[in-house]
């Protein structure tokens, strides 16, 4: 509807005589007792008393008179008869709380009453333990003004190209371009920036990467078809993530993590200095990534296995476990440091929780830690670490429609391997505080909290001491992904003897849809990044720097895959 038709509710003229004395309190009481009964007694009272005074029925759109104690049904016109006879012109509908005026012969919307109604509804939901529910967006005064002063509207049809824009390669910057394409097509991130939600906290606003992202979104959704030149973005990246500066080809995954980190810091107004991961590593004598190279830190958590910095919080005698924060040790900087429970948009969208359970083989006590993560790095078959078997005695279960024995490695195979129980071996005994001695243990990773956007990083760049190569093993990945089998809760169910959930999972919480894929073509020494992004639910486009072409779903799913971006299908309120 056009902005001109939006009406701020003035109610009707007949409300004047109602809004006198203590009307607000009285109205609230009516809402609490007869419309949204939050407490058990209120519900009981409503059930007993809210019946039509004429026919005794409680259905048929029951209304309560606002001037006296009378309930009448609407469908049979019993409330109408009462209104006419007593000249009580206002009534309230008991299911949804709407106010009906018999003189206007319609429901009326008064701003003051709407506010009271909403408050009482929220109170009742809270009392019932329902929490917050979805309510449609309503513009604020300022937003209405903006809409009036900017009458130009853009209609999004299924074949319009708004949101698609090429990016000029500024000299081996395809690694950056791909990530920008993925981010600008992340639905929640797009909505955040297009609804102008960023308030800059940086002291020098010209250096804020979040502000630059905001302008980037404006560029992408402007409708311009010419490729965009992201020179300002590149400059900001060089300033804030110095290990990525220079015209050499960098790793797209590294760029993603660095970009998310800078965005996350800038959301809080923190200025990041050059204390980048690259510099930290230089101090340890590890070389910086060469063209398309990758540091290949361990998958998760932040500490390498068997490190002395890994400590037990203590094991209880039985299957009990306790959570604790992992002590800061030899942090490879791979995972985001999230000490202040930041609630910035980056954390809301990308941060998940990875649970690590270390079980002592002697006393079976478990020590649990939960670490935040922005992405999951998955080992591939063909690397120097053996891929198969996934774990001793693992069943070839059918999950996500893929079969174990087909020969092609699947994404779910990689995830199963990632969440397998792993014997840490006799050379990596851990001091168990339950046993007060060094014992062998098993470690297992599971997902505690899933992020809204899950990014999977297939570790194609092997960069060990002797070997530097790219692993080109084809890994098939699905369009829709169910993360339920990899959840910490599923693991607990299995341990408690509950059988595996049926294939059609009952809960929708863990279902994801693919929306972006970043691919790398070429070798370790020289290569090129391209990406596929999803538009309008079922259309895919290939982004090759400045060139955007339509792609089929088969092109996407057959591609090699380096970074896979999945978006939760269903979002829940907290």
């Amino acid at each position, binding site marked *: 509807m056009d902005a001109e038709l939006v*009406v701020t509710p003035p109610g009707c003229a007949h409300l004047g005589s109602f809004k006198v004395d203590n009307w607000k309190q009285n109205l609230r009481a009516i809402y609490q007792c007869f419309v949204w009964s939050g407490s058990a007694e209120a519900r009981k009272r409503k059930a007993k008393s809210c019946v039509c005074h004429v026919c005794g029925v409680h259905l048929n759109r029951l209304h309560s008179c606002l001037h006296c104690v009378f309930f009448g049904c609407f469908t049979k016109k019993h409330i109408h008869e009462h209104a006419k006879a007593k000249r009580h012109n206002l009534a309230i509908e008991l299911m949804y709380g709407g106010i009906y005026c018999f003189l206007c*012969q319609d429901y009326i919307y008064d701003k003051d009453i709407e506010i009271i109604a909403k408050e009482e509804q929220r109170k009742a939901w809270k009392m019932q333990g329902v929490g917050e529910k979805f309510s449609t967006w309503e513009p604020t005064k300022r937003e209405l003004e903006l809409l009036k002063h900017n009458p130009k509207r853009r209609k999004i049809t299924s074949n319009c190209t708004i949101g698609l824009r090429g990016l000029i390669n500024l000299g081996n910057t395809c690694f950056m371009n791909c990530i920008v394409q993925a981010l600008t097509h992340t639905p929640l991130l797009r909505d955040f920036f297009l609804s102008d939600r960023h308030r800059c906290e940086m002291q020098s606003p010209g250096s804020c990467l979040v502000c630059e992202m905001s302008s980037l979104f404006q560029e992408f959704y402007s409708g311009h078809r010419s490729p965009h030149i992201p020179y300002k973005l590149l400059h900001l990246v060089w300033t804030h993530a110095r290990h990525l500066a220079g015209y050499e080809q960098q790793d797209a995954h590294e760029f993603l993590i660095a970009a998310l980190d800078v965005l996350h810091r800038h959301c809080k107004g923190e200025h990041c200095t050059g204390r980048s991961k690259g510099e930290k590593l230089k101090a340890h004598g590890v070389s910086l990534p060469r063209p398309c190279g990758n540091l290949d830190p361990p998958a998760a958590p932040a500490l390498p296995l068997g490190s002395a910095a890994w400590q037990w919080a203590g094991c209880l005698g039985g299957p009990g476990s306790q959570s604790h924060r992992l002590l800061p040790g030899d942090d490879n900087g791979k995972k985001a440091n999230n000490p202040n429970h930041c609630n910035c948009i980056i954390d809301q969208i990308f941060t998940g929780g990875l649970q690590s359970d270390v079980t002592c083989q002697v006393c079976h006590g478990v020590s649990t830690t939960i670490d935040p993560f922005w992405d999951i790095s998955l080992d591939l078959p063909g690397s120097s670490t053996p891929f198969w078997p996934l774990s001793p005695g693992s069943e070839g279960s059918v999950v996500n429609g893929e079969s174990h024995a087909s020969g092609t490695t699947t994404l779910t195979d990689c995830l199963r391997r990632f969440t397998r129980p792993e014997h840490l071996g006799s050379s990596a005994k851990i001091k168990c505080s339950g046993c007060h001695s060094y014992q062998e243990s098993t470690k297992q990773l599971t997902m505690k909290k899933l992020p809204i956007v899950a990014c999977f990083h297939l570790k194609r760049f092997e960069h060990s001491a002797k070997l530097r190569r790219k692993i080109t093993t084809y890994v098939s990945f699905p369009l829709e992904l169910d993360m339920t089998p990899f959840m910490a809760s599923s693991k607990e169910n299995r341990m408690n003897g509950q059988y595996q959930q049926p294939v059609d999972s*009952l809960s929708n919480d863990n279902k994801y849809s693919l929306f972006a894929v970043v691919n790398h073509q070429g070798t370790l020494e020289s290569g090129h990044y391209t990406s596929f992004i999803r538009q309008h639910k079922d259309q895919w486009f290939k982004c090759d720097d400045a060139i955007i072409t339509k792609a089929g779903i088969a092109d996407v799913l057959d591609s090699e895959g380096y970074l896979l971006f999945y978006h939760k299908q269903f979002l829940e309120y907290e």
Partner: protein
Amino acid sequence: MNKDAQMRAAINPKLIERECVKELLRAKLIECGWKDQLKSHCKEVIKEKGLEHVTVDDLVAEITPKCRALPVSFRLSPVTSGMKRYRLLTET
């Protein structure tokens, strides 16, 4: 008291089951776009009749036939799996 409790035990599960199915049905109707289609139909009616003149009852009269006529495409089995879920919940 005992009779009360008996009645409650007999009726409550059915009520809860009904609510579960209702919720699931609501979600499915939103998912498959039925609610959105009806909403745009409402907007058309309002545009036609004019915002000042249309009443809630006009809208109800207009969209009630359309509610049942609109094609709704989702499998019925999710509704029954909703009941399965409810049974799982009560049995644990």
